C-alpha cells in the first residue's frame, strides 16, 4: 500500500496576495478593536449582520461566485486569506458564514437561474443568513436514515417531519434542507433531495434550543404540511446525497477547522508571559508547532483546490487533527494558568475566553461530523474499508 495520495504538498501563497491580507488586517484593526476578547472568541458563531454587510461592501464575501450573479469571481486563495484572517482575529462571522462558505457555492452549481439571480447577489452583499437542515432526531451521524418527507403535489412540494440542531434557523433567511423524496431502496443514499426554503414560512416552526452556555444558537424545526414551490428543489431530484457530500467538502476544507480556539492560544501566551517556566514555554511551544503544521496542511488543501484537484481526504485529515488540537487547548490553558474559568460578567480576559471556549469545546467534535465518522472516511481512503 502506497500512501503518497495522502501527502500534503507545501504550498506558498503567491506574494500578490500580501496586499489583500494587509488590507483585511487594517480593516479588522479598526472594525473590531473595541470588541472584547471573549466576544471575539465566538468568531464563526457570533452573529453580527452589520459587520457581515461591511464585509460584503468590501467585496470580501461571495468571493468565488460568478460576476453575472453579483459575485466577486476571485480565486479560492483570495477567499482563503480573507477567511483565515477573519478567524484568527475572531471577527464575528456567524451571520454570513454558512451562505458564504457552502450555500452560495451549492446554489451557483445546482440552483435554478431564478435562484441564482435573486440570492447570490444577496450572499455577496452579506445581507442574508443561511441555515442547514440536515440532522434529525433519529438521524445524526447516520444522516441517510433521515425521514422528513417532501412529496410532489400539483401545488408544490408538501413537507412533513422535523429537523434538529439547525444553527441559526430562528434568524435565518433561508434554509438548505435535505429531505426524502422517495422511499429508500437497496441504496440507502438514493431518494434524497435538497431544497431551498425561504424563512419564515407557513407550516414551518422554529423552536430555539438552549445550549449549555445558556445561549440559543441551534433549533428544532418542525414541518407541518409546509408547502414549498416546485422550484424549491435544488439540483436533481434523488441526487441529494451526492450534492451534500460535495458540499461537506467545502465545509471540511477551510481554516476554521483548527482556528476556533486560536484566541485562547494568544490569551494563554500573554497570561503566562512574564512568569513562564521553561516547562510552560515548552507546552506552549508544542502547540505553536502543531498550529503551524496545521496551517501548512490547510494551505496545502487550498493549493489543491486552486489547482482543481480533489482534496477531500486531506481535508478530512486536517479536520480530525485540527479538532484534537483545538479541543485540547482549554484543558492545557487551565493546566498552565491556575485561574478559574469565568463567565463574561467577571474575571480577566484570559479567564473569560477560557470559560467561553471550555464550554464550547465539546461541540467542536460534533458539528459538521464527528471524529469517529471522519476517521472512518480516512480509513476508507486508506483502503481499509
Amino acid at each position, binding site marked *: *500500500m*502506497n*500512501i503518497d495520495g*495522502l*501527502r*500534503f*504538498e*507545501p504550498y*506558498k501563497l503567491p506574494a500578490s496576495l500580501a496586499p489583500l*491580507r494587509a488590507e483585511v*488586517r487594517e480593516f479588522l484593526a479598526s472594525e473590531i478593536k473595541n470588541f472584547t476578547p471573549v466576544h471575539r472568541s465566538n468568531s464563526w458563531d457570533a452573529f453580527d449582520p452589520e459587520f457581515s454587510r461591511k464585509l460584503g461592501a468590501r467585496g470580501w464575501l461571495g468571493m468565488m461566485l460568478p460576476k453575472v450573479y453579483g459575485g466577486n469571481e476571485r480565486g479560492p486563495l483570495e477567499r482563503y486569506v480573507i477567511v*483565515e484572517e477573519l478567524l*484568527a*482575529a475572531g471577527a464575528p462571522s456567524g451571520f454570513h458564514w454558512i451562505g458564504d462558505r457552502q450555500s452560495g457555492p451549492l446554489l451557483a452549481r445546482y440552483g435554478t437561474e431564478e435562484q441564482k439571480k435573486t440570492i447570490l447577489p444577496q450572499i455577496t452583499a452579506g445581507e442574508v443568513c443561511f441555515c442547514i437542515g440536515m440532522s434529525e432526531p433519529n438521524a445524526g451521524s447516520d444522516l441517510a436514515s433521515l425521514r422528513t418527507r417532501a412529496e410532489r403535489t400539483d401545488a408544490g412540494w408538501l413537507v412533513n417531519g422535523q429537523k434538529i440542531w439547525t444553527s441559526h434557523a430562528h434568524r435565518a433567511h433561508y434554509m438548505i434542507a435535505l429531505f426524502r423524496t422517495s422511499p429508500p431502496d437497496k441504496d440507502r443514499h438514493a431518494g434524497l433531495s435538497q431544497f431551498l426554503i425561504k424563512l419564515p414560512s407557513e407550516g414551518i416552526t422554529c423552536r430555539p434550543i438552549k445550549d449549555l452556555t445558556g445561549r440559543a444558537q441551534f433549533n428544532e424545526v418542525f414541518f407541518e404540511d409546509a408547502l414549498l414551490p416546485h422550484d424549491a428543489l435544488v439540483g436533481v431530484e434523488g441526487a441529494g446525497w451526492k450534492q451534500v457530500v460535495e458540499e461537506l467538502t467545502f465545509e471540511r476544507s477551510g481554516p476554521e477547522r483548527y482556528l476556533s480556539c*486560536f484566541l485562547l*492560544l*494568544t*490569551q*494563554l*501566551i*500573554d497570561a*503566562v*508571559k512574564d512568569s*513562564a517556566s*521553561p516547562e*510552560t*514555554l*515548552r*507546552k*506552549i*511551544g*508544542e502547540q*505553536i*508547532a*502543531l*498550529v*503551524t*503544521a*496545521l*496551517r*501548512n*496542511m490547510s494551505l*496545502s488543501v487550498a493549493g489543491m483546490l486552486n489547482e482543481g484537484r480533489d482534496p477531500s481526504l*486531506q481535508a478530512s*485529515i486536517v479536520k*480530525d*487533527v485540527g479538532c*484534537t488540537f483545538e479541543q485540547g487547548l482549554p484543558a492545557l490553558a487551565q493546566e498552565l494558568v491556575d485561574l478559574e474559568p469565568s463567565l463574561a460578567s467577571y474575571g480577566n480576559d484570559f479567564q473569560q475566553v477560557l470559560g467561553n471556549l471550555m464550554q464550547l469545546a465539546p461541540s467542536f467534535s460534533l458539528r459538521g461530523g464527528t471524529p*469517529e465518522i*471522519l*476517521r*472512518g472516511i*480516512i*480509513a476508507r481512503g*486508506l*483502503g*481499509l*474499508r
Partner: protein
Amino acid sequence: MSELQNILEESVARVLDDSIDNQFLTSVEENGWPTELWNTLCELGLPQILASEESGGMGGSWADAYVVVRRCGYASLPLPIPEAIIATWIAKQAAIELPEGVPGLIPQPLTSDLIRGDSLTAEIARIPWGRDANYYLGITDASELVILGRDGIALVAEDNLGRDPRDTVSFGNARLLNRTATDLPPDAVQWLCAMLRSAQIAGASARCLEIGIEFVGNREQFGRPLSRFQAIQHHLAVMVGAIATVDSMSANAFRAMDHYGINGGPGERDAKFEIAAAKCRASDSVETVTRIGHQVHGAIGFTYEYGLHFLTRRLWAWRAEFGGSGKWAQYLGEVAKAQGGDNIWAYITN
C-alpha cells in the same frame, strides 16, 4: 512535487528499495559499512544534490533534498547520505572544496580555545559514522568552518538505538586541513541535522503506516481481516494525522531554507522557526507512530525477524538526536513569548 522531484524520488526509491531489506539491515548491523550501496548512492550524485552544476553537483534545491532525505528515512538507510548532503552545502557556503570520501559531522559548535595554532585537541561524542568517516567537519563558536583528517585520532565506537554508528572521536593535536570563516551560525550543524531528522522521521513513519495497512489487511481474527475492525481503522487514521503534520511541517522547513536560509540577523526572517517546529512536531509524533505501528501488529511486530524495529528503533533514536521535542518546543515557546499573543499570528503567517 515538481516533475523533477517525482523523477528524483522514483530513482532514489528504486535503488533503496532494491538494495535494502531486512536481511541487508541485519548484515549491516553485524558487519558494518555497506561499501557497495554507498558507492551506488554516490554515483547517483546524492551527496552532491545541493552542489552547483559547475562543481559537478545536481544544482538542486532544499525542496529536492527533502525528497531524498525523507526517502532515506523511509528505507531505514544505514548510511550518512543525509549528513553528506549537509556537508556539501556547508562547504559551498564557505566556498571550499571537501576532501574525498565520507564526512563525519561534528554535531556541536567547537570551542575556539581548543584550537592551538593549526591543530585541535578535543574529544567529540556522537559523530554519525565517525568510524567510517574519511574526514571531520565542524563549525567553531566563531563561525569558522574547520576540516580535520583521521591522523592521530582515537575512536570509541558507539551505536544509537537504531544501531547506526554514533562514535566518540578524540583528536590529539590533530592538524586542521582547512579553516575558513563563514557566515553560518556556530550551531548550524545542529539546526540542519534537526531538519534532516524531521524528514527522516516523516519517511520512516510513512513506511510504518504502509506496513501496518498491509498487515491488517491480511491478518484475520474473529473470521475477518483486522482492517474490518473499527478500532483498528481508527488507530491507523490517527497515525495518518500525526504523520501528515510531520511530513507537511518538515517539507515546509526545507522550503524555508530555500527561501530564507539559516542565518537571519536579529529580527530578520530565516528558516529557524520552521526547523524548530518541524523537529518538535516530528519528535512529538514518534510516540503515536511507534505505539500504534506496533500495536496493530501484535506479537509478530515485536520479533527481530519481522523487521518493524528497523524503523521504530530509528524513530526512537532520531526523536532525541539534535534536540528532542523539549528543546525545540522551548525555543518555540520563547518565540511566542517574545512575539506576544497579538503578534503570533502575523509571525506564523509571515
